[in-house]
C-alpha cells in the first residue's frame, strides 16, 4: 500500500489560486458562509519582516492528512466517520458523520468559526443543520424579470451540468454534501483511485504541487524531500502532517 503525501514548492508557487478554484469545481464546495470557508484547498498570505527586508509568502493550505490525526481521535462514532485509509489518506464518511464538530475542534489547522477566531483558514468546514448546502446554486429568484437567474437555471437552459455538480461516485462520500455534517479535503480519492492526481495538483500552472507515494523512494515526492529541507505546518502539534513545504519564493532565502 502506498502512503500518499504532497510536497508544495513555494518557489514555484506564484499565488494564482488555481488550486483553490480547481478544488471548488471538482468537489462542488459551496461559498464561504457563517464562519465556514468550505475551501478544501485554500491559500494564505504571510508577510514577515519590515521594509525593505520583507518576506512575502503565498502558502497553499489543505488537509495535512496527518499520520497522527487529532480529528480521528476526536470522532465519537463507530466506525469512525473520519478515519485513516490504508493509503494514508484521512477520509471522511458522509453517512456516518453526525456533525458534532469535534474533529474541527481537535484539528490544529481548523477553526470553528474563522471570523470569530480570526483564523486565516480552516481545513475542516461544517454544513449547518438547517440551511441548504448549495444555497447559491439552488436559488431560483429572478434577477432580471423574465430572464434567467441563478447558475442552476442557466445551466439547465443550456443543457449543461449545474456549476455545483461535478459528478463522481465514491462509496464513502458524496459529490455534494448533505446538511449537518463536516467536510474536508480527501486528496480527491475518487481521482487517485483511477490513477489520477488530485485536481489541485493537475490544475497548478507552475507545477508547484507534487503528489505521490512517500514510502516509495523512487517517487517524485520522495526525491524532492531528499533534495530540499522540508517543513510542515505546526510541527509542535505532534500530528505528523504529510503535506510538506519546500523552498521559498525568494531564492536568496531558500534554505
Amino acid at each position, binding site marked *: 500500500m502506498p502512503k500518499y503525501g504532497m510536497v508544495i514548492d513555494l518557489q514555484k508557487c506564484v499565488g494564482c489560486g488555481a488550486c483553490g478554484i480547481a478544488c471548488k469545481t471538482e468537489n462542488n464546495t459551496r461559498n464561504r458562509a*457563517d*464562519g465556514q470557508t468550505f475551501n478544501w484547498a485554500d491559500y494564505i498570505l504571510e508577510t514577515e519582516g519590515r521594509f525593505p527586508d520583507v518576506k512575502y509568502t503565498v502558502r497553499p493550505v489543505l488537509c495535512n492528512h496527518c499520520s497522527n490525526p487529532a480529528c480521528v481521535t476526536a470522532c*465519537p*462514532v*463507530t*466506525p469512525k*466517520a473520519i478515519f485513516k485509509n490504508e493509503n494514508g489518506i484521512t477520509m471522511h464518511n*458522509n*453517512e*456516518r*458523520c*453526525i*456533525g*458534532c*464538530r*469535534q474533529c474541527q*475542534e481537535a484539528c490544529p489547522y481548523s477553526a*470553528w*468559526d474563522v471570523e470569530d477566531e480570526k483564523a486565516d483558514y480552516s481545513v475542516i468546514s461544517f454544513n*449547518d*443543520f*438547517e440551511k441548504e448546502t448549495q444555497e447559491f446554486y439552488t436559488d431560483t429568484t429572478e434577477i432580471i424579470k423574465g430572464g434567467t437567474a441563478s447558475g442552476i437555471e442557466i445551466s439547465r437552459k443550456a443543457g449543461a451540468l449545474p456549476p455545483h455538480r461535478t459528478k463522481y461516485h465514491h462509496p464513502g462520500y458524496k459529490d455534494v454534501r*448533505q*446538511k*449537518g*455534517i463536516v467536510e474536508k479535503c480527501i486528496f480527491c480519492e475518487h481521482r487517485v483511485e483511477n490513477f489520477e492526481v488530485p485536481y489541485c495538483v493537475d490544475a497548478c500552472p507552475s507545477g508547484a504541487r507534487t503528489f505521490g507515494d512517500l514510502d516509495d523512494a523512487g517517487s517524485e515526492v520522495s526525491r524532492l524531500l531528499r533534495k530540499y529541507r522540508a517543513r510542515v505546518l505546526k510541527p509542535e502539534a505532534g500530528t505528523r502532517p504529510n503535506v510538506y513545504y519546500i523552498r521559498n519564493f525568494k531564492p536568496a532565502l531558500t534554505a
Partner: protein
Amino acid sequence: MLNDIIINRLVYTSHLIGINQSRCLRMRLNINTCNGCLDQCPAGAIRIDERGVNINRGTCSECMLCVSVCPSGSFEINKFDFYSVITRLNDIDSPVMGCNLNPYLNAHVKTPCLGFLSEEHFIVLSTAIENPLQINLTECSNCRNGFIVSFLKKRLEDVEKKIPVKFHEKIRLVEEKECLDYHDISLGRRDLFKMIKNLTLQGTTGLFQNADAGENLQPYSDKALPFKKELLNKTFDLLNEETKEAILVNYYYDLSVDKDCNHCFACVGMCPTGALKTRGKESRQGLLFNSSLCNGCGLCANFCKINVIRIKQGLTGKNPFVFNHI
C-alpha cells in the same frame, strides 16, 4: 424496477429483525456504555463491536425483546405495520391478539413474537382499541420464546403503577386455554372481500416499507424517533388530562442547560432523534428542545465536554410538542 423489488422481497425473505446501526447509542458515541439489548437477549445473539451492531441469525430466536428494550430504536421489525394491527382489532367485539409462531393459535390478528410489546404499546392498545383486548399466550409454554410471558406481565404491572388507567380491564394476558374468549369472525361475502383487501394492503405495505433502505446504511446524521415514542406521541391527544399528566411525568423528559454552555452545539449533532436544535449563529442564544422528540437516552449529556446538560425524567408545565427555549 418494481418487479425486482417485489421478487426480491418475496424470494429472499430476510430476517425479521432489522438493524439500524446509526441509531445505536454505542455506535454514535464510543464512550457510551448502554447494554440494554446485550443484557436482555436470552440467546446472546447480539454483538456490538467496532465493526457495528450484528445479530447472529443462527442463534436468534426472534423473541423481539431487543426491539422493545432499545431506547433509540436500533432494532425494528421488518415488514410489520403495528398501526394496521390496531385498525383490525378495533373492528372486533372481543378482540384477540396472538403471535404467528404457532399456526393453530386462536387470534384475530397475528403478529411476530409478542416480546416486542413495550409499556408504550400497552398504553396505546388500551386507548386505541374500544373493546377489552385479550392477548393469547396459551401456546407460549410450548414455545422456545416462552420466557417473554414473564416480561409482558412485568411490563403490564409497571405501566399500571405509572398510569391511572385500569389496564386489567382493558388488556388481559391469557395463559390458560379455558380463559380465552375467542369467537371466530363469521365471514359474509362483504367481510371476505374486506379481509382480502386488508391482507393485501398489509402485505404490500410490508413489501414496500423501507424498500430502498438497505441494512446498516442509514446516514448517522438522519434523525429518527424510536417507534414506541412515535406511538405515544400519536396517542397522546386521545387521552384524558389525568393520564396525559401521568404520561408526561413517566415517559417524557426535560432538559436544562447551565449558563456556562459555550454553544458548541455538539449535542445537536449527537442527538439521534432530533430533539435539539440550534437557534442559528446570529442569535447565539442557545438551544431549543422538543420533549416529544426526546427518547431520554442521555447521549447529549454524556457527550457534552463541559458537562452542562442536565436531563431529567418528567415534564411539567411545558408543551411537549414544540421546541422550547432552554
